[in-house]
């Protein structure tokens, strides 16, 4: 179930996938600094981030900050990119800086909704969730005030919806997004795809598909970036409901818009593997590697597809490339939890289970808080569970899956692993229920 951007980020980021992409899309709508050059760097940062070039994107946001050091959005975007490159420490510094800026903004204007919203994001990212909740509730109050004065303010409805999502008030969020769509907001397509994403997360797939289609209809052909984003999210939704063939078409449409999109190639490669079209899948992985030879997940996917088509020697070479990249990333930053996790997964594919377990352990050790984007804890526990199960250490494996589920209970692979471990321990009824849940969550071999 590893796809594109998700694959690139590793499994733990799977749940963050649509929201991350959406976060980028939403940031475009945020108010920007007046200074033209800072705006230029900011836009460049968003573009690079959207393409998956996180380090370059972080550099661009850094430039924007140099020219406009008072812009909270730039700091939040920088922090996000730093998280994605596995640099939690520098990310925390950026979040802290953003937090300080929001405090300044709020001193000037205590009902500045956007400042409250940004403060919520910064606090949440710094694992200060209780304060984050309070800040977001203040943002809701401020938006309510704005909307009472001007109920036709589409942008405020949209932002209100964003805050409501972060407060888990999903039904109200959907209504607020709908209001922004009804008022022809410029990001109406993003509003609709977010509705789709919310419905998908609650298993309401048919409605989610309808909303994703609406998102495409609301996004003009000229807005290539949003259309690609919508197509990718629609593709993952289609995969989740088992419509791999139709998902493939969505990724192909995405590639028609930009044949150099790494994430579209990764998604396409992954779905082709699920369809057992391994030759085409290896081709797509190779295309992604051509665009970014340092993408360890592409090498890993390529290895899997080659292995499935019986080309074991080539598969091993691909795994070795993935391993080399992960090891280099670890050398660059020994606290890069994602790199440790990628190393573990690669070693596991190579059948080196004990070494894999050690890498997964290291990943858990160096991971930041489990809610952080940079955390690889869930994926590492899952990988550890798989490795332990392969070694027949069923009790320990069960415990590892439990840990993964505790962090991210929507992971079908973790429930499937738990089911297998329980069955191996002779607990058939419990095992059967865990496997059933895995299927409900979209598990596929």
């Amino acid at each position, binding site marked *: 179930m590893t796809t594109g951007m998700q694959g690139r980020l590793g499994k733990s980021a799977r749940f963050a996938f649509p929201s991350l992409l959406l976060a980028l899309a939403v940031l475009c709508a945020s108010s920007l600094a007046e200074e033209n050059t800072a705006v230029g760097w900011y836009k460049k940062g968003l573009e690079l981030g959207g393409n998956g070039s996180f380090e370059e994107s972080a550099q661009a946001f850094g430039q924007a900050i140099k020219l406009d050091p008072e812009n909270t959005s730039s700091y939040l975007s920088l922090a996000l990119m730093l998280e994605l490159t596995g640099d939690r420490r520098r990310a925390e510094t950026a979040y802290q800086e953003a937090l300080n800026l929001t405090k300044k903004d709020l001193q000037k204007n205590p009902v500045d909704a956007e400042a409250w919203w940004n403060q919520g994001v910064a606090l949440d990212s710094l694992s200060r969730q209780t304060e984050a*909740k309070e800040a977001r509730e203040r943002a809701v109050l401020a938006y309510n005030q704005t909307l009472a004065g001007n109920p036709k303010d589409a942008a405020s409805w949209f932002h209100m919806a964003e805050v409501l999502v972060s407060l888990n008030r999903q039904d109200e969020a959907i209504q607020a997004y709908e209001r922004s769509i009804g008022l022809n907001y410029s990001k109406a397509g993003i509003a609709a795809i977010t509705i789709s994403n919310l419905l998908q997360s*609650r298993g309401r797939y048919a409605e989610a598909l309808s909303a994703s289609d609406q998102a495409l209809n609301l996004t003009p052909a000229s807005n290539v970036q949003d259309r690609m984003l919508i197509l990718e999210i629609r593709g993952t939704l289609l995969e989740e409901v088992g419509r791999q063939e139709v998902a493939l*078409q969505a990724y192909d449409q995405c590639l028609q818009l930009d044949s150099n999109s790494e994430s579209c190639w990764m998604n396409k490669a992954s779905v082709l593997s699920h369809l057992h079209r391994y030759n085409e899948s290896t081709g797509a992985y190779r295309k992604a590697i051509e665009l970014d030879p340092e993408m360890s997940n592409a090498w890993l996917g390529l290895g899997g597809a080659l292995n499935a088509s019986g080309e074991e020697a080539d598969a091993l070479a691909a795994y070795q490339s993935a391993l080399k990249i992960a090891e280099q990333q670890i050398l660059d930053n020994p606290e890069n939890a994602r790199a440790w996790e990628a190393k573990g997964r690669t070693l596991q594919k190579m059948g080196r289970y004990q070494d894999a377990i050690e890498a997964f352990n290291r990943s858990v050790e160096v991971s930041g808080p489990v809610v952080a984007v940079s955390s690889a804890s869930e994926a590492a526990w899952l990988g550890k569970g798989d490795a332990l199960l392969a070694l027949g250490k069923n009790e320990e494996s069960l415990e590892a899956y439990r840990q993964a589920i505790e962090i991210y209970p929507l992971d079908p692979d973790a429930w499937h692993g738990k089911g297998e471990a329980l069955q191996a321990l002779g607990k058939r009824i419990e095992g059967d229920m865990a496997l059933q849940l895995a299927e409900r969550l979209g598990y596929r071999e």
Partner: protein
Amino acid sequence: MKAWFSAALLAAAMLSCSGAAQEKTASDWEKEGWAQIDNASYEKALDAFSQAIGMQPDNESFWFDRAFVLALQDRQNESVAAYNMALNLTENKLKRDPQDALAWQSKSVALAGLGRREESSEAAENAVRIYDQEIGEHPENATAWWYKGENLANLQRFEEALPAYEKVIALNDSKRLKDAWLSKATLLMQLSRYDESFLAFDEALKVIPASDAKNLSQAWQWKGSALEEAASLGQCDETGKLEEAYQAFHKSSQLNPQNIWAWINMGWAAEKLGWSEKAAYAFDNATLIDPANIQVWRSKASALFHVQRYNESIPAYERIIELAGEGKSALAAEAWQGLGDALNETGRRSEAMAAYEKALQIEDAALTINATDASAWLNKGDALQKLERYDSALQAYDEAIANAPPYWSTIGESAWLGSGDVLLKTGQYEDALEAYNRSIDLIPLDERAWKGKTDALQKLGRADEASFTLSLAGILGYKDRNAANPKADIQANSTAHAVMEVAYAEACSDPVAATKTEKEPEAARSQKDGE
């Protein structure tokens, strides 16, 4: 559906063992008992099985029958005693003949009933080994294939059981053909291969002679249940599948108007479709067939409550209480709690409290007789919680957990869930979280536990984790009753309603059709370009 499946398999296993019965009269009593189970008349079934046991006390099949029907009535201690009796009998048989495959199968079923899973699996595997030997020597022996399939299915090795049943079908064993198709259909459902499952049900329906209305009715009823389960997954064409399920139950009730479960399932399906009048008609018919059947009234009451027709559920609960009388106190207590809930929902708070008090009195009386009755402790905890006597409720749940049977049951899960709810209400959020986790560990498919965990996480300020658990609760069927209907919002607001329909059809249609839909605009464009 799951319980139905397990029950069906166990029933099949038990019926297959019953072939050993020589006395015609005892066998007749057994058949009578199963007919009563089909009618949900569990007391009558128990009487019939007791008659059979009286005639042949050494026949383990009758003890299985007894254990099964006692379990259906939640009389766990008596059920365990019956399984123990059956186990002793099968062990004696195996001492005499260690190659007696049917005895191994019976032993496996008895051990499963006693919660001794590993030993149960070993016994079933022994049976499979013996049948494999037989099949090695006589590959055309359909009976050996049949029993091999049964044992593999009991071992939940569904992928392996499937070819065994397919072999029975290929060998065209007329005696088992219908059951082999039905078993195949059921296994395919277990493997979530619903479309294939429906086809297998259709084959079973073809095999059953038109004159055999009773079996045809049952097959239609089972197919309806399969359609209903597929619909409940909510992925594609939910309403269409549910309508098909309704039609299947309707067909079943036409073929055998005495089939109570066809009427009840039809009522449920109609309720889910929002067809209130049809639902009421179906439930009324079920209760008319046997107005004194307490199980039918239970289903009717809980269905009406579930679909929030509280006022109509009240007389149904009252009828259960009337029918339960003094003799069936557990059912009466359950009905008092249901009645209390319904009264509460309709704003009759003081009457609701009185109903909960009644339930509490009955549970207390039961606990005076047997202080280790886990089920009574659980129900007592629920009644106390509703009466807002939270400390006592927690103590009762603790007792339920401490006295829960050693084998797998829902009591532990429900008691942890109840504890979680009480702890949440009393502001003990960390403990509530732990209680919900324990509940989820036992049964991860209960949306109430995930919703409870969500609330506890929210209270603890762990909003990110709460968003995941809320999603999971939603996927498992939790719906916020107070929330607006976002689907309606989208439809009302969207200018692209027709487009939505296309998207829906496209995602749920077969790949070929979907491809056509996707390609159509392109084809249309090139035509236009050509012009």
